[in-house]
């Protein structure tokens, strides 16, 4: 019986040891989250996204009304009003697709330097014929030391299959 209990105790202690390693992994995860999502970064600033429209890649201009849904064979772009932001911050605007990949970007730079880059198009991935379907997220971000630390505006768009 004592041998049996000892063997069980080894199993018990082993699983506790593995759990300790598990806790270390989860703690690293918390630190990683805190590093990329630092607390106390809110400045209260808000950027203005004027709208998301059909994009004409030949002319480089947007056309039509503000929309939240597009077919996959129609290119689209967001219009960002940089003038709503002060000039002492570094910002950019990015489109993320369903997989979290950046599919279009303007910036980074100060709002004044981006004043003539108000249109942020979604790019068709290289080698593809259409925009990939799914949910797209446009974020206007404030950067600090090349790292996005705050979202100043956000907009979601659906691309149909």
């Amino acid at each position, binding site marked *: *019986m004592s041998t*049996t209990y000892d*063997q*069980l105790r*080894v*199993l*018990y202690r*082993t*699983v*506790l040891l*593995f*759990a300790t*390693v*598990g*806790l270390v*992994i*989860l703690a690293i*995860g918390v630190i*990683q*989250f805190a590093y*990329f*999502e630092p607390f106390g970064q809110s400045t209260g600033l808000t950027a203005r996204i004027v709208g998301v429209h059909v994009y004409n890649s030949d002319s480089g201009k947007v056309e039509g009304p503000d929309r939240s849904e597009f077919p*996959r064979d129609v290119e689209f772009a967001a219009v960002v009003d940089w003038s709503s932001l002060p000039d002492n911050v570094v910002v950019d605007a*990015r489109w*993320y697709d369903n997989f*979290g990949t950046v599919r279009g970007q303007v910036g980074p730079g100060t709002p004044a330097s981006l004043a003539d880059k108000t249109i942020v198009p979604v790019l068709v991935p290289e080698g*593809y*014929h*259409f925009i*990939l*379907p*799914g949910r797209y*997220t446009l*974020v206007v*971000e404030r950067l600090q030391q090349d790292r*996005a*630390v*705050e*979202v100043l505006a*956000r907009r*979601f768009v659906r691309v149909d*299959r």
Partner: protein
Amino acid sequence: MVAPPAANPQSRLRPARYWTALTLAVLIVVALVTSSILNYVYLDTISGRTSLYGLLAVALVAFGTFILVRAYNRDPAMRRKNLIRAAVLIGLGVLLWLLIIDVFLFTQSAGPLVAAVCALVCLPTTAFGLVVVRRLDRNHKEPWRLVLVAAAWGAIVATSLVVWGETLWQSTAQHALVPGPGLDTSLAFMAGILEELSKGAAVLLLFLVMRNEFDDVVDGIVYGAAIGLGFNFLESISYMTNVYAIFAPEGFGTAAAAIQWYFRQVLGLFFGHATYTAFIGAGVGIARQLPNMRQKVLAIVAGFVVAIAGHFAWDAWAALFPVDTTVFVIVEIHLRTLILSGPFTAALLALLIFGIRYEGQNLRDQLQKEAATAQGAILPEEVAVLASPWQRLKQRLQALSRQGVRAYFRVSQLQTAQLDLAMERWHRERKEIDTPLEAEQKLRERVIQLRHWVAAA
């Protein structure tokens, strides 16, 4: 008639266990119903409808499982009838669930044919996984009915349980966090915590309701891995149809679905969900044999922590692993799985090997003790054969070569009954069961009866 004494007459654990199981089951049902209604009302998406209409399939599986459990706890005369009823209900539930998925989730994107093909190609690999996982227990294999119930729960109930929680977490995170590594880390925590809790609930229910078939750490690993394989089966179909729908207009939908199949059903078959949930099973299996409540709770919590950590590590850090676009991509992808998930699977295998040895040594001890009683169920010369999986196989193969397939299965039945008896004795000695002593005597009689059949053949 006087009732035979129980192994542990002082045990008050059985009613408490059943109440705990009932409470857990009620909580799961409430969570499922609430989740489905909320999905339908607020999400207004195809998955919301799937979730709501899928409740019927979940109810069928749950009711079928209840009847299945009753079949083995009640009058043996009713067993066959109850088994057929349970099989029909669970079968209908699975079919209905697949149908609902086809119709509501994938028809608009990939089409029912693609969903059916994806399900069909995932079936052989998942079945292979289940066969391997069941065979891991070299000394005392789990009954197929419970392994399949575990897989069905993983595929249907566990996947349904996470829909609302994950949708809510994902939606909140996407509205609040900076896209990129921070958001990815949050979503990795989401998958680790919610998916492992939903799969772990099934392991706990099996432990609470079917404790006679839940012997130790090895059984826990087998059931946990089976639940993980079931979950992986449905998740694979979901991802394959999704990528097919996305990439089909570009002309490589089939290739994208095939790559997903390889990642999830070949490369990740044992590394992913099966490993994570097997850790929960290992924790519960160790808890089953521990003497005091504090240690039991700690072991179960430890199993959950390892499972969540393993799942989190993969989801959070797989994308950080460098994978380029050269020909080395194939090597890199395999290395990524080996480096990130390999240590967890290796740690699980260590627990499994130790558990098998521990179980084997104790079974041998009980076989010797039973042989010493000279009651005829186990003969002294049989101990060495019964204690070794290879010797047992050799004995069965000898029966096969001498007297054919029927003899093989009869010897197999005899060996199983003898090991059942040794297992019963082991748990009784450790005061881990509350079934009456009569059960042990019945097992002994069954062994003697089977021995007559084998001898007569």
